[in-house]
């Protein structure tokens, strides 16, 4: 019971981060800020949700797989963020500071 409520709290917290990331994606002015909001918030949000789900797992194998999923999603999203920012910079759009 204790474990379940803890995992609920973690998942809820993760969801909050996702929502914050989405708000940032919609509200921020240029691509770099949006990327910042998205990758940061989602990275943390996913980590929290993965932790919450791992608490409910039946076996160590499942926990291991959840950690793996988290790891690869984190690496992939970091790479994606890098690629988007790189493309944007190469096509000549610098960050706007106003």
């Amino acid at each position, binding site marked *: 019971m204790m474990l379940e409520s803890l995992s609920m709290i973690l998942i809820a917290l993760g969801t909050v981060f996702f929502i914050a990331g989405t708000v940032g994606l919609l509200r921020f002015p240029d691509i770099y800020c949006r990327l910042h909001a998205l990758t940061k918030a989602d990275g943390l949000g996913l980590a929290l949700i993965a932790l919450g789900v791992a608490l409910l797992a039946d076996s160590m194998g499942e926990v291991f797989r959840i950690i793996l999923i988290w790891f690869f999603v984190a690496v992939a999203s970091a790479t994606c963020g*890098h690629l988007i920012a790189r493309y944007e910079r190469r096509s000549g759009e610098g960050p706007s500071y106003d």
Partner: protein
Amino acid sequence: MTDPLVIFDLLLGLSIVALALAVLSVRDLFAAIVLFVIFGLLSALAWVRLSAPDVALAEAAIGTGVTGALLLKTLHHLRYVTGTLDRPEAMNLTPVTPVPMPVLWVNAAFCGLIALGLAVAFLEAPKVGPGFDALVAEAMPASGVDHPVTAVLLNFRAYDTLMEVVVLLAAVIAVWQVERGLSEAPAPHLGEVWQGFARLALPAIVVVGTYLLWVGAEAPGGAFQGGAVLASVGLLLLLSRFYVPQPAHRGIARLAFVLGTGVFSAVALLVSGGGRVAFEYPLEHAKTLILLIEGLVTISIAVTLAALFHGREPVALGEEERRNDT
């Protein structure tokens, strides 16, 4: 209204419909493709809700992943050909004459009516209809595998599955035929971070793909999902230029394309005889044969999907012209 998840279902259903509309109405083609990928992933989620994890996996890997890659590659090629590669603002590749509004409305009304008719027919149908449940449950012990979907795919309806692999073979032959001698759009240079990611991801994908294939015997997964995941290895290799298709590799590629179909049909034919018909695996060997077929079909699917992504048959430069001259 006892299940709070119904609200989730409603929201998910509405988002799926909204995404479908957005795919067709958004002006930018790139955005349309990305929205389509999101649409596919949410559909896969809906199918998980309908307790169809196998289908969801297949959809996410093939229907969304591989298809998304194919679509994006095509868009890249079209932009390259039309010279709009560096002008993302050029949203349409060819000048498109807008459809007159009345036509659009008539069309929408027509399709709306069809949807209405189908919806009425659907709601009228029995909530939980008759099905194959009992038949499958009864036949499972004789199938050689423990996972019902795999049993249906590789044993009860193996004929369908063989023909499905044949469709893939036909597709790759047709694509090679269509694209012979087509000049290639230069692959984008993606930088070191991406190269590093590819090095890290490649072995992991191989492990995941093999795991999906192996686990298919008793849990969701199987040849098609595993094959699609392994195909992404091919995609990564091609994109990162770790592997560049050479004309000399054509023979082995052809062999890989027909490997699955060939072994599948050969086994189907060879097990027959002595009162047995085609596809009737002897019970004591059923598991081995199904695993053999699945493994080889997975290799074929992976190579074929990667080849569909690559497109052209690798032909030596000028070979086509030389042959035409002689």
